[in-house]
């Protein structure tokens, strides 16, 4: 058991950031914490990395208690905060060496662990960190978080503000790290990244909505979802929202995801209604639920 959280609560004055959070992460697991901004993801990360002390509950990381054994945790975890927080006026090389020294190790000692990632930014190693692009900053931050060969890696929204190609690369890197038996706890507001995790926890307003594998979570969605499209998107959404039988209406790319409250829902009746609203080119098709649909359903 790599991370064991039980009944953690934390509040800032009146705001309840976390309420009774409990879950476990197995060694070598890639665990995703999925939730919108302000859900409490960062607060949980800060508690687990010993930067913040919870009001209630206990948590263990790599077998050490986050309060009484915080010194050991700092030696055995890597943390990559959501905001880029390496020294901007040090170069790539200097940053890496600086963090290696602080952790009492050298770059050479654990080079094999970061080699794949570091090779991509090595051509720019004399460039200052502040002058790097978003994707390169992420890679450097990951290198610095890995330099002491941590047992557990905490990544707080590592792909926020990163372009789609770099995002994809980043997740591939995480998959490779996982094979080296590093436990990874990653948070993200992007639902599409959730499917890449072994297990995910959906979190909102400081509460865990559901914990399971991405496939299982999708199966929990009880509603049949329909892709609805028409020539006027805005009018379509408004019409669906005023339809008296609607259960949920969310725009989803070029379609609107629609669920109905009735068990004997007939798409044809909806089509008739939409046509009466002066919409044309109407298509209504069944589709499978995604994590986003499930999250929206659970968050209702």
């Amino acid at each position: 058991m790599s991370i064991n959280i039980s009944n953690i609560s934390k509040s800032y004055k009146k705001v309840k950031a976390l309420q009774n959070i409990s879950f476990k992460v197995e060694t070598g697991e890639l665990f995703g914490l999925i939730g919108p901004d302000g859900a409490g993801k960062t607060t949980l990360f800060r508690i687990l990395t010993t930067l913040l002390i919870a009001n209630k509950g206990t948590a263990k990381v790599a077998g050490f208690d986050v309060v009484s054994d915080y010194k050991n945790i700092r030696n055995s975890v890597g943390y990559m905060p959501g905001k880029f927080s390496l020294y901007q006026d040090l170069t790539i090389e200097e940053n890496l060496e600086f963090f290696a020294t602080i952790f009492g190790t050298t770059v050479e000692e654990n080079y094999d662990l970061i080699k794949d990632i570091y090779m991509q930014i090595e051509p720019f190693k004399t460039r200052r960190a502040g002058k790097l692009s978003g994707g390169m900053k992420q890679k450097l931050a990951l290198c610095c978080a890995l330099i002491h060969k941590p047992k557990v890696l905490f990544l707080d929204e590592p792909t926020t503000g990163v372009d789609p190609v770099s995002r994809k690369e980043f997740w591939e890197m995480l998959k490779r790290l996982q094979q080296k038996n590093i436990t990874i706890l990653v948070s993200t507001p992007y639902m599409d990244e959730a499917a890449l995790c072994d297990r995910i926890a959906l979190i909102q307003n400081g509460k865990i909505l559901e914990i399971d594998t991405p496939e299982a979570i999708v199966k929990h969605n009880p509603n049949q979802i329909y892709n609805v499209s028409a020539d006027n998107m805005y009018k379509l959404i408004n019409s669906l929202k005023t339809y008296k039988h609607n259960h949920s209406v969310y725009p989803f790319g070029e379609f609107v995801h629609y669920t109905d409250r009735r068990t004997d829902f007939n798409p044809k009746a909806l089509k008739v209604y939409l046509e009466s609203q002066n919409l044309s080119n109407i298509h209504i098709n069944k589709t499978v639920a995604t994590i986003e649909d499930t999250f929206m359903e659970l968050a209702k």
Partner: protein
Amino acid sequence: MLPIIFVLPLLQLVILSNAATFEVKNIKFGYVDNDRTTTSRALTEKFTASTYFNVLTNFTSLNKASAAMLKGEIDVVLEIPNHFERDLQKEKYNNLGVTINAIDGAAAGVENVYITQIIQRFNQNLKVNLVQIPDQQIQPINIKTIPLFWYNETLNYKTFMVPGILVLLVTMITLFLSGMNIVREKEIGTLEQINVTPIKKSQFIVGKLFPFWVIGIGLLTIGLILAKVIFNIPMIGSLLLMYLYTSIYIFVVLGIGLFISNFTETQQQAMFISWFFVVVFILMSGLFTPIESMPKWAQLITEFNPIKYFVEVMRMVMLKGSGFLDILPQLLKTALYAFVINGLAVWSYKKTN
């Protein structure tokens, strides 16, 4: 950044040392001569002869002189009464009216002393001229004081201002830099990354403060060289002693800076609080106004002012050549201060919140 840290303070040293003088010169002087005799003219000529006064106008009435002072055209009005010469000869006694613009209280005090001196000197000459009866029974007894200004014989204000201003520079730069430094890391977020590492509090703080300590000592060195080369300030005491004291003193300032940055969230707050302390420390350091003239409670507060000790020590060692034992009280107090404030700073720095 590094050139700014060194160039600006030294510019300040050169400018302030030449400008921050207690001498009042070019006093705009006006007089109303109601007497118009040789004696009254002799008196006004004394003022004309003085290098401190610019005799501007002879006003026909006190009202006109007052109006001129209101407009700021003159600083001092001397009113010589009617029958000044006659009364002086007859009664051996007379009054002169002196009006001084006291908007600047310090300058007014100095002006008063100048005027009194000129009139006294005039008075003595007058006695010789006017008192012509040799068989006076009581000879006027004159007690004359001959002041000797030790350690600064010519009362050169630069000699005591330059060491003081040097103190201010070392203090300001080290306090501002250290006060802003850790807050800056809080703002950028690098502190968070550092806090999850196994680095020890003391290691981190020493690493943060040592560069500023070096900068402080560097500033002192360059300042001392300038003081010698430009202002030719005497340096009688041991340089080593000065460096010993300064190296302890900088720890106090750095500790204060660190303490401030522990309790602030933004550089703006840190800057504001640093400024507050610097201004209080400077004005209560005895550099510009003597501590002896402060009220009792203020004198008590100055006991906690590190700049006061530094100014004292610099002046003692540089001008008086004080040795280790002479500055030992200040040295011990500063060392205690450094110990307490740094202890508080390390204690209040928390890696978790």
